[in-house]
């Protein structure tokens, strides 16, 4: 009999980036890279597990913005172009590296990998990755949970109840559309929680959510089992806390596995290393050097002199690290089992894009881990929060503490000198949205369209990704532009309503650009 449970939770999210007004758009590559390096490898991993009869249980959050992009025809078309071009580059690389066997071997590896990826995308999954994930949910291996509509950081939008409700309700409705069922769980954007959020979650029918460790540990009254159990909030929504010990072994740049010297070096990419004229057709349309996804070196050590990547030894390391992770979880769960007097749950959430994209060997690590847990031991069993809740329905009632899983544990990443200028605009737009629905909400035809599009623009402006990018400095200009342009479109549409003057061409233009949530209904902003 098992002595406890491990719940692996992946949070897959990208902000909505889609620019039909440009032939090619650099930031759209985030999606293409994530499809190639993370989403398809995860699906293939699950195919392999299912084919081999391995019983497994995973939880994944596919954010509503990601689902909207994965189902978008234009982005699918562009993805095929992207992968074709990458394959073409691999072909050239095989030729270029013919006198360097260590590199040519890798060029061939990439060529094969990308060719298979394209084949799987087009033929196996028929361009429909959402259906591919859904298949595993329907088979009982995977639990897909939702997220707030555009990944808005809720603690900083909480100047109006309607804004919180809309982020949640649009996220839940989007899930229903894609997965034909109600979401049981929600991934709160950045695990951002404020006191009272559970009431909103209850209203949307959410059964559970996940918090950063201190969100549970600092709850009142003191949670008896630390983060190793589920609890109920007073509105009877279940809450789980992240285990920091197991998270660290993967996340930490010091102690974490991904920094191992045998693993692939993320920061050495041929997009930067090779002759400019040679690589020019494969980098940014404006001529700026960027990652191509083709990387030939291993981390090697604290040195700029990197050695060629060796796939086999990296693979062995991933197996070793999976064994180490499992061993530590066994010890942890044995200890907790004897201390708690009931089967603990260890909840380990990660950004999905860590696996494959950042940590090239991450999906293999996960694959090894799942197989080992299934075959090599009896202490741990994989579970999902839903399953655990079913088995342990009697739980202590706590009031979780405001918290997030961002740097320093609260709101500072999204509220500092680099990005605090957005809140006066966002908060006012939230109020104006509620007022516009109140004033014009009973009318039909074109006003309905305008109100719906205003809701889309507001939600897009609220994505926490923009504030995050302003803070880190990566793509901060783009992030500022996105925040500003959605708010500007919002005001332009509001102006149409106020003046009762509707230029259909303008409205259609905006609808075509920001076509997220086609099913949206502005009534989510009704007060």
């Amino acid at each position, binding site marked *: 009999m098992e002595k406890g449970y491990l719940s692996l939770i992946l949070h897959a999210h990208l902000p909505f980036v889609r620019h039909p007004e440009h032939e090619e758009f650099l930031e759209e590559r985030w999606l293409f890279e994530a499809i190639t390096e993370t989403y398809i490898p995860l699906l293939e991993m699950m195919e392999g597990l299912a084919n081999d009869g391995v019983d497994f249980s995973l939880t994944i959050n596919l954010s509503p913005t990601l689902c909207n992009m994965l189902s978008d025809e234009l982005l699918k078309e562009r993805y095929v172009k992207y992968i074709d071009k990458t394959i073409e580059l691999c072909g050239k690389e095989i030729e270029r590296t013919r006198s360097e066997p260590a590199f040519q071997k890798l060029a061939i590896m990439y060529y094969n990998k990308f060719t298979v990826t394209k084949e799987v995308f087009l033929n196996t999954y028929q361009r429909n990755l959402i259906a591919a994930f859904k298949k595993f949910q329907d088979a009982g291996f995977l639990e897909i949970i939702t997220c707030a509509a555009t990944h808005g950081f809720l603690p900083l939008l909480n100047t109006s109840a309607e804004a919180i409700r809309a982020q949640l309700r649009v996220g839940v409705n989007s899930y229903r559309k894609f997965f034909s069922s109600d979401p049981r769980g929600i991934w709160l954007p950045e695990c951002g929680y404020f006191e009272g959020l559970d009431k909103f979650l209850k209203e949307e029918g959410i059964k559970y959510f996940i918090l950063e460790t201190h969100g549970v540990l600092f709850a009142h*009254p003191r949670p008896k089992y630390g983060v190793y159990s589920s609890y109920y909030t007073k509105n009877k929504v279940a809450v789980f806390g992240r285990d920091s010990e197991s998270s660290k072994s993967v996340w930490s740049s010091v102690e974490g596995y991904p920094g191992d010297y045998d693993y692939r070096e993320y920061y050495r990419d041929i997009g930067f290393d090779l002759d400019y004229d040679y690589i020019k057709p494969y980098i940014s349309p404006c001529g700026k050097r960027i990652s191509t996804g083709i990387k030939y070196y291993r981390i090697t050590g604290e040195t700029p002199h990197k050695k060629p990547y060796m796939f086999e030894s990296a693979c062995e390391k991933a197996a070793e690290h999976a064994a180490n992770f499992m061993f530590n979880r066994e010890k942890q769960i044995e200890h907790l089992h004897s201390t708690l007097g009931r089967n603990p749950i260890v909840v380990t959430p990660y950004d999905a894009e860590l696996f494959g994209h950042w940590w090239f060997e991450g999906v293999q690590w996960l694959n090894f881990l799942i197989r080992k847990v299934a075959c090599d031991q009896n202490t741990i069993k994989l579970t999902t929060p839903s399953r655990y809740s079913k088995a342990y329905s009697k739980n202590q009632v706590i009031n979780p503490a405001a918290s997030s899983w961002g740097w320093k544990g609260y709101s500072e990443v999204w509220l500092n000198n680099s990005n605090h200028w957005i809140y006066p605009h966002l908060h006012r737009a939230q109020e104006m949205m509620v007022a516009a629905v109140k004033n014009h909400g009973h009318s039909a035809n074109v006003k309905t369209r305008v109100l719906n599009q205003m809701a889309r623009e507001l939600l897009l402006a609220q994505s926490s990704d923009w504030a995050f990018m302003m803070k880190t400095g990566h793509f901060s200009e783009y992030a500022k532009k996105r925040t500003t342009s959605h708010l500007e479109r919002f005001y332009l549409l509001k102006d149409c309503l106020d003046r009762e003057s509707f230029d259909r061409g303008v409205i259609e233009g905006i609808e075509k650009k920001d076509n997220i949530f086609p099913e949206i209904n502005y009534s989510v902003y009704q007060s």
Partner: protein
Amino acid sequence: MLPSSYEDNRIVLLPRDPWWLHTYWDIAQSRIEEVISLIPSSDRDNLKWVLRVYDVSGVDRHKVSNANNFFDIDINLAAGNWYINANCPGKEWCVEIGLKSLSGKFFAVLRSNVVKTPGFGISSILDEEWLAMEEEYFKILGVYDLGRSSLERRKRIEKFFIEQISSPLALWGSTQSEQDEIPAVKTPNK
């Protein structure tokens, strides 16, 4: 272009973490003039702008007149926003922006919403039904040596949590190269 000012007479308060608050404001000139006109002429010289920060924890309807206490911060009105070191987790706060005379009289111009700073630390409230022994409880969390005195104990626990929470914005690989590389997808920061 987004408006640089809305002149809609508002001050908004946001909690940043257990110790810090953030506030922004937007005041119409007419509102300032209105308040000044109500100030006795003897007090009108050398007025300065301040934020009055009220602790309204547990106060009925959060009335600032019944606040537990307050403190003032000199500000630059044109800054439009301010970070406030309230330094007190788990409390409810409200701010007023206003003018203060040389003699110390305060004339409020606008009042904010009420927010609560996140609590910090393990709750001392215990559920009888779910009672756990202190030592045993901290063992679950991985704190084995609690120290002898209660002060020492409190310090160790807080240190433990601050270390747990303060994860740096880390990047993998050896060193991020000098090249103008921009990581696609999100920079891992957990």
